[in-house]
Structures are given as C-alpha cells and as structure tokens.
C-alpha cells in the first residue's frame, strides 16, 4: 500500500508540472497569435493612404480608415468580434486593447530616414519612410493558478509598402 501511495504522490507532482506546461503552451500560442495578427493588421493599416495626395507624391495616412482596417484585420485573424472582444467559447478570453497608435508620414514635418523614439513603449527604430506605429496589449489566457495572468504587450512599426 505504501508503494501505491508513493506512486500516487509522484503522479500528483507530475500533474502539477503538466499544469505549468499547459500554461506555457497557452501563453506561447497566444503570444504567437498576437504577434502575427499585429503584423498583418499594421500592414493593412499602412495601406490606407490618401489617394489624392499619393498621386502628388505625398504619403499621408488616413487615421480613421487605418484604424478601421487595423481592427478589421485583427478581428479576422484572431477570430474576435469587430470591436476586438472575444467570441464566446473561443481560445482568446480577453479583449485586445490598442494602447498606442501613431502615424509618421509626409504631413508630420520630418525627413526620412527618421530616428523614431518612444520612451513610454520602448520603441526605437529608424524609419526609412512613412510608417504606422501600433502598440497593443491583451491579458494572457490563464487556465490555472500556475499560469501567467498579466498582460502581453506587443508593438510594431510598419512602413508604407511602396508599389515597386
């Protein structure tokens, strides 16, 4: 009997270790989903430029259209509602929040290359051309008390993709 109890004890320890693994897998998956969805959403936001000014050689982003494209692509890629809140029963349990949005373009009064610097979100990058900058955060999906349940922060600088 002592033998069986010892085995059960080892099994319990193993179970706890596996729970931490489940947490790790969940967080990794969410982190990947967020990173890649952010890349695609920022890419689509960067395509929203004023066509009239673009025909004159100036790249100026349209903030409302960019925000709309960003949210549309993000929700499509993450399987969320259009306002970036989770659908019932989906893997993602918390809403995605856009915490920072900035457009650096030909109307910003800067010359490219431009050293972009944001101390609040620790974004430091040399911009070669007009770019959109986004920072988002989402609370990690926590399945047990062993899981990380804080926020995952991601940011991106996406340059306007010139045709050709």
């Amino acid at each position, binding site marked *: *009997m002592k*033998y*069986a109890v010892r*085995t*059960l004890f*080892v*099994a319990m320890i*193993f179970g706890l270790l*596996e729970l931490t*693994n*489940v947490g790790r*897998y969940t967080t*990794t*998956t969410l982190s*990947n*989903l967020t990173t*890649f969805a952010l*890349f*695609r959403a920022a*890419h*689509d936001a960067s*395509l929203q430029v004023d066509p009239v000014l673009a025909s004159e050689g100036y790249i100026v982003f349209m903030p409302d259209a960019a925000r709309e*494209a960003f949210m549309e*692509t993000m929700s*499509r*890629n993450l*399987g969320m509602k259009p306002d970036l809140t989770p659908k019932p029963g989906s893997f993602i349990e918390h809403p995605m929040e856009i915490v920072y949005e900035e457009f650096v373009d030909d109307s910003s009064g800067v010359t490219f290359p431009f050293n972009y610097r944001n101390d609040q979100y620790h974004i430091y990058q040399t911009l070669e051309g007009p770019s959109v900058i986004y920072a988002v955060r989402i609370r990690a999906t926590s399945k047990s008390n062993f899981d990380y349940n804080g926020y995952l922060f991601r940011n991106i600088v996406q340059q306007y*993709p010139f*045709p*050709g």
Partner: protein
Amino acid sequence: MFKHALGELLTVVFTCIILFQPPLHELFNVRSNAVELVLNQGIAQASSYDNGRFTPEIIQQMKDHLTQKFFVRESDIEFTGTTTITPRGEYIEGRLTIKATPFWLFSSLFGEGPETISRHATMMSEYVER
C-alpha cells in the same frame, strides 16, 4: 499479494505517462507553432506587390519548410487559399492544415485529441498591376 500487484500496475502506468506524455504535448505545441510561423511567412510573401496571391511556388515553399524543418509528411499537409491575383487593398487569405500528432498516450483514458492542426490568416494584398 493484491496490494503488491496494484502498486506494480500503477507504477507501470504512471511511469509510461511520466516518460512519454510530456514529449507528445511538446511535439503538438511545436507543430502548432510551426504551422503558424510558416503560414505567416507564406502570407507575407503572397501579399507583396509582385505576387498578390499564393503562387504555386509560395505554396510549395511552405510545404518544403514543414517537411524539411519540422518533419511533417507532405501528404499530411493541406493548403487552401487565394490563388487568383487580388488587387491592392483587398483581402487574400490562406488556411494551412496538417495532421496532428497523438495528443494523449492513452487515448482510451483521456479521449482523442484534435485530428488536425489548422491555422487561418488573412491580410490585404499590395499587388499593383504594371
């Protein structure tokens, strides 16, 4: 006698689970991440201004990546997506599916895991006709 047999039996079962269950979960997780990563690379290429769709080369490149780097059989990979040229600003999409590895060591005890690992991605095209 019975107590001893029970102890031995539990030991064998739990030893098998402790040894072989974590690698199965790890493999499943690695493959899920691989599908996500490969599809992301594929759609980034597909949306570029000179493609505007998933070309046969991009699809083959994704399959090669999965077979050569992650040892997935080519017959277990399935791709569906936009293969017609899409104008700039319109959505292209792709879904990459591979056969899942066994999720549980004793599936009769814990139930069958997912049969496939599938990821979907969508993004606007940059394609410009020249």
